[in-house]
C-alpha cells in the first residue's frame, strides 16, 4: 500500500476547485428554487377538481420520479435541442435537477397541505374567503412551515446528485476534478471533492435536524 499523496497537486487543483464549488452551489441554489416552485405547481395541480388536470400531472411526476436523473439529463441535453432551443450544460443541469426534484417536493407539499386541519378550510369557507386567498393566506403558510425541513432534506439530496451535471459537461466541483485528473494523471482531486461533499453535507444535515426540532416544537 503506497499512499503517495502529493500536496503540490492539491495546490494546483485548488483554484479550479473553488470555481467548481461556485458552480455547484449555483446549480444547487437555482435547482432548489426550480424544484420548490415547480413542486408547488404539481402539488396544486394534483388537488385540482378536474381529472384532466390531475391525470397528466400524476403520470408525468410518477414517470420523472421513477426514472434516473442521469438519463433525464441526457434527454434534456441531446434530445430537447432537436425540438427547441438548446441550453448550455449548466442550464440543462439546473433544469434537470429542478425538474427531477420537483416531483419529490410535490409530494412533500402534498403531505403538508393534507396536514393542515380541516377546520382551517372550514374557517376560510365560513369567512367566505375567495379561493386564491384561502390558499395564499391560510393553507400554504401553515403547510409550507411544517414541510420546510423535508424540503431542506431534498436540497441535500440534490447536492449529492449535482455531480451528475458534470457528465453532460458542466464544470461543477466534480467536472473540474475530472478534467484536472485527466490532464495531470493524478487522483488527489477526486479525494478532495469527495471530502468537500462530506464537509458540506454533514453540517447541512445537522442544520436541518435542528430546524426539524424547532419547527416541530413550535407548530
Amino acid at each position, binding site marked *: 500500500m503506497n499512499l503517495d499523496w502529493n500536496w503540490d497537486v492539491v495546490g494546483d487543483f485548488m483554484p479550479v476547485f473553488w470555481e467548481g464549488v461556485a458552480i455547484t452551489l449555483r446549480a444547487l441554489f437555482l435547482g432548489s428554487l426550480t424544484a420548490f416552485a415547480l413542486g408547488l405547481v404539481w402539488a396544486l395541480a394534483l388537488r385540482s377538481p378536474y381529472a384532466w388536470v390531475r391525470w397528466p400531472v400524476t403520470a408525468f411526476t410518477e414517470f420523472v420520479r421513477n426514472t434516473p436523473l442521469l438519463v433525464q439529463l441526457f434527454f434534456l441535453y441531446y434530445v430537447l435541442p432537436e425540438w427547441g432551443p438548446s441550453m448550455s450544460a449548466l442550464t440543462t443541469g439546473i433544469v434537470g435537477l429542478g425538474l427531477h426534484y420537483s416531483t419529490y417536493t410535490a409530494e412533500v407539499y402534498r403531505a403538508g397541505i393534507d396536514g393542515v386541519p380541516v377546520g382551517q378550510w372550514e374557517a376560510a369557507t365560513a369567512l367566505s374567503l375567495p379561493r386564491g386567498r384561502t390558499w395564499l393566506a391560510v393553507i400554504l403558510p401553515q403547510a409550507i412551515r411544517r414541510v420546510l425541513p423535508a424540503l431542506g432534506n431534498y436540497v441535500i*439530496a440534490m447536492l449529492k446528485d449535482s455531480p451528475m451535471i458534470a457528465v453532460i459537461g458542466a464544470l461543477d466541483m466534480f467536472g473540474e476534478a475530472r478534467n484536472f485528473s485527466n490532464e495531470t494523471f493524478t487522483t488527489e482531486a477526486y479525494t478532495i471533492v469527495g471530502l468537500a461533499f462530506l464537509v458540506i453535507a454533514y453540517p447541512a444535515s445537522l442544520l436541518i435536524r435542528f430546524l426539524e426540532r424547532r419547527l416541530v416544537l413550535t407548530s
Partner: protein
Amino acid sequence: MMTEGMFTNYFLPGIWITIQVTVFSAALGVVVAFLIGTLRTSRLWIVRFLAGCYFEIFRGMSALILMFWLVFALPLMLGWQLVPMWAGVLALGLTYGAYGAEVVRGALAAVPVAQREAGVALGFTRVQRLRRIEIPQAWPEMVPPFNNLLIELLKGTALVSTITVADMAFAGNLVRLGSNESAPVYTLLLVLYFAMAFVLTRGMRVLERHAKASVGQTIERRGLFARRRPPAPTLGAPDAEALPAGGTVGTR
C-alpha cells in the same frame, strides 16, 4: 432510427447488465443495512459510534464521486484495480446500504420494548433476540421504505455507465453516437427504467403483503396502478419514525 444490430448488440446486453448491477448492489445493500442497522442499536457506545460514522460518511457522499474514487483513486493507493462493474456495485451497495441501515434501525426501534424484555427474560442471547424476535416483527415495517430505496438504487445504477460499465444507459449513449439520433434511444431508455421500477414496486408489494401476513396483519390490496408513497428524504431525518405524528411529513 435504431438498427436491429445496435439493439441486439448493445441494448439487450445492457439491460442484462443493469439488472445484474441492481441485484448485486441490492444484495450488498441489504447486508450492509442489517449489519450497520443492528450495530447502531448495540449496547457498546464505541460500536454505535463507529456504525454512526459509517452512516454519516456514506450518507453525505455522492455515489457518483465514490464510484470515480473507487475506480481511479483507490487503485493507486492499493496497487490493484477493481473491475469497474464491481466498483459500481460496491459504491451503490455501500451508499444505499447506509440509507437502509437507517430503515433497519428505525424499524427495530419501533418494536415494542416488551418484546425485547420478554426475550431477555427467557434468556435469549442478543443475536437470538434479533433473529427470533425483533427482526421478524420489524421486517414488515421495513419493506415499504426498502421498496423506495430499491427504486432509488435502480435509478442509481445508471451512474455505472460513467465508469464504462456497459449498462443500458451506456448502450444508449453508444447508440446515440452511432446513429446520430437521440430521441428514440433516450425515450426507450426512460421507458425501460420506468418499466423496471414498476415491476420492482409490484414485486415489493407482494413481499409486503406476505410480510404483514406473517405477523398477522392484513393490508388491503391496492390496484395494479396504485401509487408508491414517495421515498422519505433519507438525509437529516433519521428519527423520522420517532418524531411525533403530524410533526413532519409522512415518512413513506
